[in-house]
């Protein structure tokens, strides 16, 4: 029988039900495995948060604390059944994480981890000082989980509960990452610009990941409370929070199974150090802390990408859903010749520098318009004004009659402006086809919940069919499942074109698409753009290759030092004295 990835959960489930009762594992090890499972849940959340989403949290232990204390208080003070406190634990962590996340996830760079350290410590002291939570002694005598009248007090019984939770968390997380929202999350760390240009709401995606990771920690806390049967503030402090983070990093950034490996590694290490060092040195001291810190530093020095990639190599190519033959409903394109984009007196200043100086031009639908000019002419800035990356200083830009005044990249994407970037913005560790499918973000509707429960498959099939079709158009279908980071620059530019086409754009904005392309590739690109035009999609093109742009464009707009110096058909521009002056210096 051939071993397939789909069988992994089944095999795991079977192992979980059988292994603890075979007598192969001594009690001690079963208990250790239970702790590994509980830590794995937290580490899986951190893999998603840190490894995939690029947000670092030292404070996950506090969320474990919220899960554990919620259940402890509800069962002890209100006599509620432990099974009913599970949703309560999850909801409490969700609310707390939502509140903290709303404040902290928008922080850029290193402020986020620093913020997590601060609130991680604050919650630790809060747990330790609320008499209602038993202060520093905590709460003891938490009832065990029961099935009927059978209490799950034996580590062996609890093993089943813990590891079922871990398997479910792995499946849910893989589903989430594989779906539409997952692609958006995976784009966060490498390039928020690319995601935003295709309609991803970065702040919302970050908050979602943050809350998801916290809820996994809350689940771990609930399991911890009913396994340990007592809670105290100790395990919810910043030290444990660091340990969870270390598990995620040790396993391998961004690898869900790596989290389990990391959790196992750290738990074993700590346990062994506690057993072995006193025996070795014959003295009880805080040796394990010394050794633990040293091992941590050594791991970071030798394997900062984690152990999982070293052991098991790079991640496997994704198995996308079977593409369907349908295509997403296209956008109603305006009739050729109607005014589409109207730039009026657009102005952008950076301090005293006028980058774009009262520029006017129009793009009619079904046309290819070239925006040219020497280096520093303001072409890319104009592009960023149209696509909402930069706000206008003055003037206005209209697109199909909508004024793009308070424009965001997401809104530009929703209106049908598909763009490429001068410096390619590709998610290097995602496959080519997934990068292209990111362009179809706004065509899908499935949210995180549908993805977690695997209910987004038919929509995903549609999006991947679209992505596949666009990849075929740019001639890169044969590398669809390669990691995008392994491709050459010219190919990456074509991937960006395919991604922009995936948006079903009304207007395609290409920023130097031919730079880095070979002659044959340039011809193919020109052919593709003519084909796109014949379908009624308009193109606005910034390009330095004059042959390429002259042969392709219906009209040209020439900028120099931020000011429009000429506009017209290519033949006229070629003869224009102002243009010759700008490009070649004085002719007089």
């Amino acid at each position, binding site marked *: 029988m051939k071993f397939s990835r789909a069988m992994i959960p089944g095999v795991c489930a079977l192992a979980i039900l059988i292994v603890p009762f075979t007598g192969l594992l001594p009690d001690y090890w079963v208990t250790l495995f239970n702790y590994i499972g509980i830590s794995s849940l937290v580490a899986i959340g951190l893999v998603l948060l840190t490894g995939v989403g690029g947000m*670092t949290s030292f404070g996950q232990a506090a969320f474990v604390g919220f899960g554990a204390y919620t259940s402890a208080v509800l069962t002890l003070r209100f006599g509620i059944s432990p099974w009913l406190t599970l949703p309560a634990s999850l909801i409490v962590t969700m609310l707390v994480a939502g509140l903290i996340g709303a404040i902290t996830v*928008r922080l850029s760079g290193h402020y986020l981890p620093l913020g997590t*350290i601060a609130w991680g*410590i604050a919650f630790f002291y*809060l747990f330790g000082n609320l008499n209602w939570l038993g202060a520093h002694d905590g709460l003891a005598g938490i009832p065990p989980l029961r099935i009927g009248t059978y209490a799950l007090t034996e580590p062996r019984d609890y093993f089943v509960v813990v590891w079922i939770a871990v398997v479910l968390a792995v499946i849910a997380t893989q589903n989430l990452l594989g779906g539409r929202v997952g692609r958006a999350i995976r784009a966060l760390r490498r390039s928020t610009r690319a995601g935003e240009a295709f309609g991803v709401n970065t702040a919302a995606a970050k908050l979602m990941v943050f809350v998801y990771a916290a809820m996994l920690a809350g689940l771990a806390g609930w399991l911890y409370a009913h396994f340990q049967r007592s809670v105290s503030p100790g395990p919810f402090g910043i030290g444990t929070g660091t340990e969870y983070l270390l598990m995620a990093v040790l396993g391998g950034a961004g690898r869900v199974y790596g989290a389990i490996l990391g959790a196992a590694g750290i738990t074993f290490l700590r346990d062994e150090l506690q057993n072995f060092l006193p025996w070795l040195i014959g003295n009880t001291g805080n040796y394990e*802390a010394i050794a633990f810190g040293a091992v941590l530093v050594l791991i970071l020095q030798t394997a900062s990408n984690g152990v999982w990639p070293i052991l098991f190599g790079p991640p496997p190519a994704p198995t996308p859903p079977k593409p369907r033959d349908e295509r997403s409903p296209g956008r109603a394109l305006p009739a050729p010749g109607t005014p589409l984009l109207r730039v009026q007196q657009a102005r952008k200043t950076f301090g005293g520098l006028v980058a774009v100086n009262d520029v006017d031009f129009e793009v009619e639908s079904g046309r290819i318009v070239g925006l040219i000019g020497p280096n520093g002419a303001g072409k890319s800035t104009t592009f960023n004004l149209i696509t909402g990356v930069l706000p206008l200083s003055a003037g206005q830009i209209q697109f199909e009659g909508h004024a793009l005044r308070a424009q965001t990249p997401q809104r530009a994407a929703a209106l049908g402006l598909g763009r490429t970037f001068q410096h390619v913005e590709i998610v290097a560790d995602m496959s080519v086809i997934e990068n292209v499918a990111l362009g179809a973000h706004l065509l899908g509707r499935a949210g995180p919940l549908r993805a977690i429960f695997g209910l987004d498959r038919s929509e995903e099939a549609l999006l991947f069919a679209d992505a596949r079709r666009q990849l075929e158009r740019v001639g890169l279908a044969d590398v669809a499942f390669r990691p995008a980071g392994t491709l050459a620059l010219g190919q990456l530019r074509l991937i960006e074109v395919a991604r922009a086409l995936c948006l079903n754009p009304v207007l395609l904005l290409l920023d130097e698409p031919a730079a880095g392309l070979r002659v044959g590739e340039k011809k193919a690109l020109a052919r593709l753009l003519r084909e796109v035009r014949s379908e009624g999609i308009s193109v606005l093109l910034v390009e330095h290759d004059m042959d390429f742009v002259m042969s392709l464009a219906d009209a040209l707009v020439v900028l120099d030092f931020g000011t429009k110096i000429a506009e017209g058909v290519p033949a006229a521009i070629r003869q224009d004295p102002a243009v010759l002056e700008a490009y070649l210096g004085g002719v007089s």
Partner: protein
Amino acid sequence: MDTTIFLFLLQDGIINGAVYALVAIATVLVFAVTRVILVPQGEFVAFTALTIAALENGTMPSTPWLLLALGVLAAASEFIRHFRELNLRRVVRIVLFDLVLPVALLLLTRTLAPMKLGQVTNILLAIALITPMGPMIYRIAFEPIAHSSVLVLLMAAFGVHFSLTGLGLLFFGPEGTGTAPLSQASFSLGNLVVTGQSVAVLIVTAVLLVLFALFFGRTLLGKALRACSSNRIGARLVGIPTSAAGQIAFALAAGLGAISGVLVGPLMTVFYDSGFLIGLKAFVAAILGGLVSYPATVLAALGVGFAESLFSFWASNFKEVLVFTLIIPVLAWRSVYAPHAEETE
């Protein structure tokens, strides 16, 4: 609350804040030059206070042994890592700094400790014992991963903190001690009793801050460090060795930590792990100051100190909770108004 209590709390807060300011300045400096968020900074503070306490009792502190252990580790790690690039000069430098210096300090401490030469000697000796630990730790833990992301460096900093705390327990034991005040004098200012200790803290802090400003504004070395912090690659291109800059930053951090330890020893009972909270509160101040501006950091540190003494008056149980929560509104404000910068790796 009446004026007397308010003034008392203010005095208390300013003294604590002054100590936090020194530690926070060191945190900002180290972060700017090396991108390391120096979590173990507080350990220097605690170890210094414990060293002085031992010297005051006329007993031999364990600090020289700790220094020697770190020196041996630093030498070993450099020999192993740079085995091929070793030349005579480098070997001599390693031997002198990592082995000869700790052994010399060890012998010196052994000779001086029973003699009870008094406060000034104790303080100078303690600072001399603690300061070299900074560059040693940099070379052991951070130099090999100097180009990693802030996150990796931060985790390594936590690793160093765990190890140092463990070593602290091993070398100094679990008992807490205080040190003799710098000045026994006290005088009244209206209703308020001002102790000589608090005046000493303020004077030392102010002098150090001025020296710091002069160092960075006027000296070539200070300017080179500033260059490293604003653009590492650019600094390397103009010939500033970033590794040396990192070591200097760590030496300054350890030195400032040691002086903070001198100041803090008489104010509280110091345990081997007391440094962590001091370091973290300084760190709150450093974040409030945006991790770049020294004057803003000093103001923020004074604010943290004052807030702490207010909180301990109103709700002493929740003092720590409130101090660390201070950071949240500031971060929230930043998240709304600070320009969004994408993290580059």
